[in-house]
């Protein structure tokens, strides 16, 4: 087994291999860098709530709980062992994946070995689960006081009827109370199979030594096929569930967040990535800092530097968000809808399209300077089934016609919801 060089639009030194266990390994070889950044991800996130072919439910917040618990094994806290090697470690759970990371300079090979080892050696006891429930409950309470977090999940709850993207990634104090060691083990066995995982590295390690290390780790894990599991319990209607979410918190200014639910879900690989890029370019042309809309809304005081737009596309769900601090959410929403309407009538500015493509290209190149960004994007590409740095080529292929089609497909009144967090009345 050996690394193969992965051709990519940026000509970056990317290497790839698939171990006998099914684990995919991707490496950005940077001999001129001092540190190694490694990310070990599993294609299991908060939206994976149907466990196994029998359809047994996965409790809300389980993927995140599992992430916490893997850091503790029979010998104690794994973070301590990384610290002994001079490394730092962390993990994060998202909608579609859980990623464990390590940042190391000395002993990078041992750190890589430890990363592989601890993620693949679970140790769950009810006593430790109970202790973790208290810690995660504090984490949930921290998010409860965060207006941006509340606005986001308030919005998701309006957009989605059934899809678990509507639920808080960390779960609720009540839902995590239902988790026990047996449930953790059942979900671990389902979703942490090597063929459902990806290891991505960026740094100066010798690729041959990485290869030997991964092979030594993976060979004993066998070649059994991964247990079957389904990602989504379908049935999500195309329209929003509710038009609006309102809440009061002790803050100084209202937060306004508008969401547009993707109705055109499905597809795989670069089709999903292309949908995401096309929608981002569309939104940037219409609402980016160089747009006429941004300038006039800013001049009128309806938006400020906090205003931003984004789009997330996955195979089973997708959404755009637009928002920021705003004293008059109603007026801003009406103006945003006017901008969409005008673009429908008058089309998009070709010059702006060229500029935004330039900007995206610059941004993609800039991101390659960060080993962390590279490792995360390699994992996303792997799970999505797209080529590394494919965005650079796809952005070049986009056309104005395609963006107009996106506008027609994506922006519909019945797919739009808003969340408003207002300052609590005294």
């Amino acid at each position: 087994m050996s690394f193969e060089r992965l051709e990519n639009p940026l000509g970056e030194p990317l290497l790839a291999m698939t171990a006998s266990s099914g684990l995919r390994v991707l490496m950005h070889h940077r001999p001129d860098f001092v540190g190694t950044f490694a990310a070990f991800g599993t294609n299991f996130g908060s939206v994976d709530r149907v466990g196994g072919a029998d359809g047994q439910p996965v409790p809300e917040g389980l993927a995140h709980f599992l992430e916490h618990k893997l850091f503790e094994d029979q010998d104690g806290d794994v973070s301590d062992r990384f610290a002994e090697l001079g490394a730092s470690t962390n993990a994060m759970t998202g909608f579609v994946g859980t990623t464990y990371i390590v940042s190391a300079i000395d002993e990078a090979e041992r750190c890589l070995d430890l990363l592989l080892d601890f993620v693949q050696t679970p140790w769950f006891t009810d006593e430790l689960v109970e202790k973790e429930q208290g810690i995660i409950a504090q984490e949930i309470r921290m998010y409860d006081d965060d207006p941006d977090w509340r606005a986001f999940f308030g919005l998701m709850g309006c957009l989605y009827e059934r899809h678990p993207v509507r639920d808080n990634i960390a779960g609720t104090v009540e839902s995590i109370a239902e988790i026990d060691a047996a449930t953790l083990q059942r979900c671990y066995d389902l979703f942490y199979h090597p063929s459902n995982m990806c290891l991505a590295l960026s740094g100066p390690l010798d690729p041959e030594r990485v290869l030997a290390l991964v092979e030594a780790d993976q060979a004993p894990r066998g070649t059994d096929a991964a247990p079957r599991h389904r990602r989504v319990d379908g049935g999500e209607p195309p329209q929003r569930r509710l038009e609006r979410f309102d809440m009061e918190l002790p803050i100084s200014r209202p937060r306004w967040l508008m969401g547009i639910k993707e109705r055109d879900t499905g597809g795989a690989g670069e089709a999903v990535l292309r949908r995401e890029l096309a929608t981002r370019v569309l939104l940037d042309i219409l609402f980016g800092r160089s747009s006429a809309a941004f300038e006039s809304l800013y001049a009128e005081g309806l938006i400020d530097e906090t205003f931003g737009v984004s789009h997330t596309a996955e195979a089973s769900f997708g959404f755009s968000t637009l928002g920021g601090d705003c004293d008059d959410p109603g007026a801003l929403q009406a103006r945003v809808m006017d901008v969409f309407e005008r673009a429908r009538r008058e089309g998009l500015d070709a010059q702006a399209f060229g500029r935004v493509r330039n900007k995206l290209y610059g941004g993609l190149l800039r991101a390659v300077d960060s080993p962390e960004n590279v490792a995360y994007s390699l994992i996303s590409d792997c799970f999505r089934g797209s080529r590394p740095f494919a965005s650079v080529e796809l952005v070049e292929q986009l056309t104005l016609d395609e963006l107009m089609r996106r506008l027609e497909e994506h922006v519909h009144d019945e797919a739009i919801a808003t969340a408003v967090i207002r300052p609590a009345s005294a």
Partner: protein
Amino acid sequence: MVRPVPTSSLAASSAFVVLDGPGGLPVHLLRTRKFKTVALSWALECPLDERRAARALLGDLLTRGTASHPGLADLSARCDELYATDLGGSVGAHGPLQLVKFSMVTLADRYAEGLDLFRQASELLSEAVHEPPLQEGRFRRDHLEQERANLVRAIEGLADDKGHWALRRMIETLHADTPYGLHSWGTAEEAAALDEAAVHSTWDDLLTSAPGRLFVVGDVEEEQALEAAERLGRSVPRPEPAQRLPLPEQIARAPLRVTEAEDLSQSKLVLGFRLPESAVRSPAATTFATVFGGGSHSRLFKRVREAESLAYGCGARMLHDSGTLVVQAGIDASSAARVEELVVEELARLAIEPVSDDELQLSKRAQSRRLRSLVDHPRALGGFRLAQLLAGRPHELPDAIAAAEAVTAADVMEIAAAVRLDAVYLLEGTAT
């Protein structure tokens, strides 16, 4: 044992040259082809005085339009054309100083199809700083009013991030009536009162008399960096930049206690400690803070989170520029007294029992990794160098690493013994 630091390779990848720029503006240049980007930052030094709100306003006002790209959209479009060149204007507090930074990040010329991107981007930054879209010699009224309103809102919005707000309130309590307790944006009242005359004269003074340094990291020749310095500094003679900023005077008193209530799910406890100047300036201060509360291997994490499950996070860090050690935790209000008790107990233990060699080495390794990894992060390199220069600490990376390596268990114990609890702030969550 900690492995010997490979100082030769580290020295090579962090070897700034200091050029004497036009008007005496020091230019700290790290020439490297390692990155795809070039980062430039011009850091100007001002007192944290009554004009701080005006300078905070200038950071935003000057980067929203230029004479030849007067509108926000015009200037942003120009940045897009220059491959997402990022222009920035910001202020921050550093000890008794307000640092005003004008910065840019752009792609290295070799990625921009033959464009001399660094020259064009630095010209754009220079135009933003020196040639705003004036009308009859005055800042445009609409721009000024919008940015003033935004600044007032931003200052009021500081209270919305409860973790940061609790820290701010503790700092204001501990450093009351000194520059060390002031926010670099000023108060909402000060910002609301700004008029054209005040902002204009502050702009004039900033560009003609504030000392500063220019940092450039990337694939840039010395001549190009000096040309950028000329464009930004305009060869105006300036005083020498600060070398070793003063620290707050020592005060011995019973800890000040402030509790404020809000309708929150989680309470925020922030403890502020003072250290004498000798301790703040010692390399052991960082080692001590790391042992005490710097990460998952620290005393506070082990005790407060792992042993007693009282918090999702509990950590300590040194604010070197104000000589303050800060401990923060997000907790249930009912646990506040217990968490404070644990923090004080762990501190007392560190003052009387030498840390084990294992614990000391763990902290040193963490510090060493943080310092050495700076060479992989172009923007962080300039920021680290500036902070070290202002603190009078070793600013060459190998020297800073060597200083940290030399810290002993006795040094850490000495720091712990010198730390004094001075302010306890609790933002009490009252949500049911």
